[in-house]
């Protein structure tokens, strides 16, 4: 479905269907997330440093602040041949691995990080694909399995499918804001053992698409569960910078693991993922992210490196951007003010807007007939449930699509608004959801929300006739 939408309406400026009169002049995409296309400004410090890295003649240009030039010089030196065009070692530039390790240790209040266990990759999905390939079985053996949350990020199914891994869902509890449920995990593992060889559990924190942020107690429960069942933890933490619910604190799985003491810290194996594409900076086009492996054999890490060597290591500009975004200018440095200005005035404002929008979306959606929505306190989606009448289900069945997909298709064709169908996030047997991104405050999106309202009412009224 996502492909259908994406292929028919790639961006706002694409023309509507030929020949069919439309009530809208352009499509508003509320389900895919490209912050800079929506007007979130890029960070000047990042742009300047990268530009100088690409064209080192600018190192002598005093129009660039001293710390810009110093940072660029350091980064250029960290590249082979002092050029951003050179191939790097397959797990990334050594200097950047160290800088990422510094960031993680700072973030987690001193938990030690080994730079050699950092693998820089071209975005989260590629890295996950590589890890799953590593962990998958070959033909003939019992199929390896991974416990996945339901709902799950919509690209996950394809990634696991490609790697030949069986995914066994554990349901998140919608009525508690999509929290994890230990009993449900236990039920899932029992089911899994009946049909495959479960070896890992995949978690999104903040949740995608749910927007749930786990508290420490919940994380501890999951870690204990994984330890008891000997499961490898695959933890998607790419949205860690966008926690917007008030009073909500995000803590990393690694920190919690460390705080649980040697019994767990020395035994539980984990891969955690972070990426540049998410977060309010949204540098999707630079393609960089990293994976940190904890308690994984050196031997296995060499395999990971081998796979990376022939898969896609991160392009150099993205690696450099990781350094800049994870280790921004400090208060004593010349670019600090400009950086903070951009971050505070633009990006944090957007965070505030996101909070507001998420609340407003939540209230608004709850006010619509047939919709109910849990609060989203992290990430970039709201994920309302929509109760579709029986006629709609029948029509969908006749058309050979899921009912929420039909809804989304009609919303797109009639109102020019693109939202995601919840069935892409896993089949919840008769319950339907939509996936919307409320992150931007542009007038177009406000308008789109109104359109969704009109459409919903219109849809339901149509059914009544």
């Amino acid at each position, binding site marked *: 479905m996502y492909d259908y939408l*994406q292929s028919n309406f790639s961006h706002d400026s694409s023309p509507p269907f030929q020949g069919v009169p439309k009530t809208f002049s352009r499509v508003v995409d509320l389900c895919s997330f490209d912050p800079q296309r929506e007007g979130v400004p890029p960070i000047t410090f990042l742009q300047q440093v990268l530009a100088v890295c*690409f064209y080192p003649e600018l190192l002598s240009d005093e129009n660039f602040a001293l710390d810009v030039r110093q940072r660029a010089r350091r980064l250029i030196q960290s590249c082979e*041949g002092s050029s951003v065009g050179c191939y790097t070692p397959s797990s990334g530039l050594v200097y950047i691995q160290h800088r990422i390790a510094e960031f993680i240790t700072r973030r987690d209040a001193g938990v030690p990080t080994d730079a050699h266990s950092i693998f820089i990759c071209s975005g989260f999905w590629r890295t996950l694909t590589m890890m799953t390939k590593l962990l998958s079985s070959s033909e003939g053996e019992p199929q390896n399995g991974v416990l996945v949350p339901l709902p799950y990020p919509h690209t996950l199914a394809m990634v696991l499918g490609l790697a030949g891994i069986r995914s066994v869902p554990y349901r998140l509890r919608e009525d508690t804001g999509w929290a994890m449920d230990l009993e449900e995990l236990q039920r899932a593992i029992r089911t899994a053992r009946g049909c495959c060889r479960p070896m890992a559990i995949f978690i999104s924190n903040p949740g995608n698409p749910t927007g749930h942020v786990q508290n420490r107690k919940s994380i501890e429960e999951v870690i204990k569960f994984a330890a008891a069942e000997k499961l490898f933890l695959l933890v998607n933490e790419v949205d860690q910078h966008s926690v917007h619910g008030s009073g909500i604190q995000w803590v990393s799985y690694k920190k919690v693991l460390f705080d649980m003491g040697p019994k767990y810290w020395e035994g539980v194996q984990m891969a955690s993922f972070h990426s540049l594409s998410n977060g309010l900076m949204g540098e999707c086009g630079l393609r960089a992210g990293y994976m940190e492996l904890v308690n994984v054999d050196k031997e296995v890490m060499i395999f990971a490196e081998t796979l990376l060597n022939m898969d896609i290591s991160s392009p150099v500009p993205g690696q450099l951007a990781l350094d800049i975004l994870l280790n921004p200018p400090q208060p004593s440095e010349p670019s600090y003010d400009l950086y903070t200005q951009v971050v505070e005035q633009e990006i944090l404002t957007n965070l505030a807007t996101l909070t507001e929008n998420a609340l407003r979306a939540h209230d608004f959606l709850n006010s619509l007939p047939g919709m109910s929505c849990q609060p989203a306190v992290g990430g970039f989606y709201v994920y309302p449930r929509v109760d579709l009448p029986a006629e709609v289900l029948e029509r969908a069945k006749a058309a050979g699509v899921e009912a929420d997909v039909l809804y989304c298709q009609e919303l797109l064709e009639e109102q020019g608004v693109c939202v995601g169908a919840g069935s892409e996030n896993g089949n919840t047997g008769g319950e339907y959801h939509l996936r919307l991104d409320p992150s931007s405050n542009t007038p177009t999106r406000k308008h789109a929300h109104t359109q969704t309202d009109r459409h919903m009412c219109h849809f339901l009224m149509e059914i009544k006739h």
Partner: protein
Amino acid sequence: MSQHRLVNPLVRNIRALKRGALVRQAVRIEEEIKQGMKKPYNEVIDVSRDNPHATGMKPMSFSRQVIASCIYPELIDSDKMPLDVRERAKTLLECIGGSVGCYSDTIGIPIMRDSVSDFLTRRDEGVPSASGNIFITHGSDHVPTLMQDSGVLTPVPSQDFGNALVASGATAVPYYLDGQQGWRLHTEELQRALRSAREVCDPIALYVINPGDPTGHVQSRESMEEIIRFVYEEKLLLFANEDHQDILIGEGCMFISYKKVLAEMGSPFSDAVELASIHSASKGFMGEGGLHGGYLELVNFDPSVQIEFDRLISLLGLPIIGQLALEVMLNPLQPGEPSYEQYQEEIQHIRETLVHNVTRAFEVLDSLPGISCEPINGGASMFPRLHLPHIAIHQAKEEEKLPDFFYCSRLLEQTGLCVCPGSDLGLPEGTYHIRLCIMTSVDTMEEVLRRLGKFHKQFMKDFS
């Protein structure tokens, strides 16, 4: 608990490349130098892979200026940059949505794909190219394949492509290039390889590299026509890596694309042979391997296959900057534009440097016993053959090392020069080669040849 069992057997089967061990050795040596350990050399020179900017070549000024201006658009408004740089950056920036941080379409930004198809139509003197058949990629080293569970005839010697196939579940079936005849392809050898392939797998494709890497061989039109007839008769896909098409070294050598040859052969070949060709900004005069910009063109492929391919690469996420590098490479400056002369000079300089390096390298090799090399007409590598004395081979086996790796490891330790052992490139036991990148500055090449010459003479003496 041993985690070895966790690892996918397919992955465990990937050949461990000796180059990795050499790189680790080089890192150790560099650490020792940093800590003040005395060595007969001050630094490691790594020519084991094609990484031109690491060996003294300079990036193209125009492309770097354009990319820097796209990254930091304020440069477009300043007069620091020449006018043509600013204009190109402005146009490109508009097409990519105003920032290099935006998402790219999964198969590449439309204007990029148009640029590629325009370039191809120009290059192939009118053979049409449709942007619908163009896919932007991360560069020729990272082409996703649909070839799982199938066999691909793969040239030996070649870069570790075989490994990439194995990792995706395909079988790489070797066909041996002729090391006595300039590394050309023989159809008889292809037929032999195909017969043996059919006993173990379902071979569906033939992979060719032209200009050859690391062999330096540039195929003649006749040879290419033979290949096309072969794939037509055997109903194989033809997968052509043409990454080194930009710079030829051999006098009078010409590059023709497989697409052009195919088109000019006419029916039934031109309608039936399924051809996939790749190129990138990683090699040639750009040398921007770290930016990940390349393209793939499909000819005569079933539309349903193209759709499958589209879905497969939709997970990839293409970097914008790589596409910018590609665009500048394929859409060069015109005479009269402010940066044109400098651009042409830079390309000319690279060409001349390569020709000079090859000449010097042959001079040095001809003076050394026990080492010989086929002529180099293209590409960026040299692939000399080592005629190792028996004693050396015996010593290598005592140390449980492949003989060419044994040679490379000693070369690195004693002279700080890192080259790639031929066994990494698929060559069977019994012949020994080394591969070195010749896309280096003149001074670097002198130093490389000095170290290699000195070491080799001593080695041959020590093991005679």
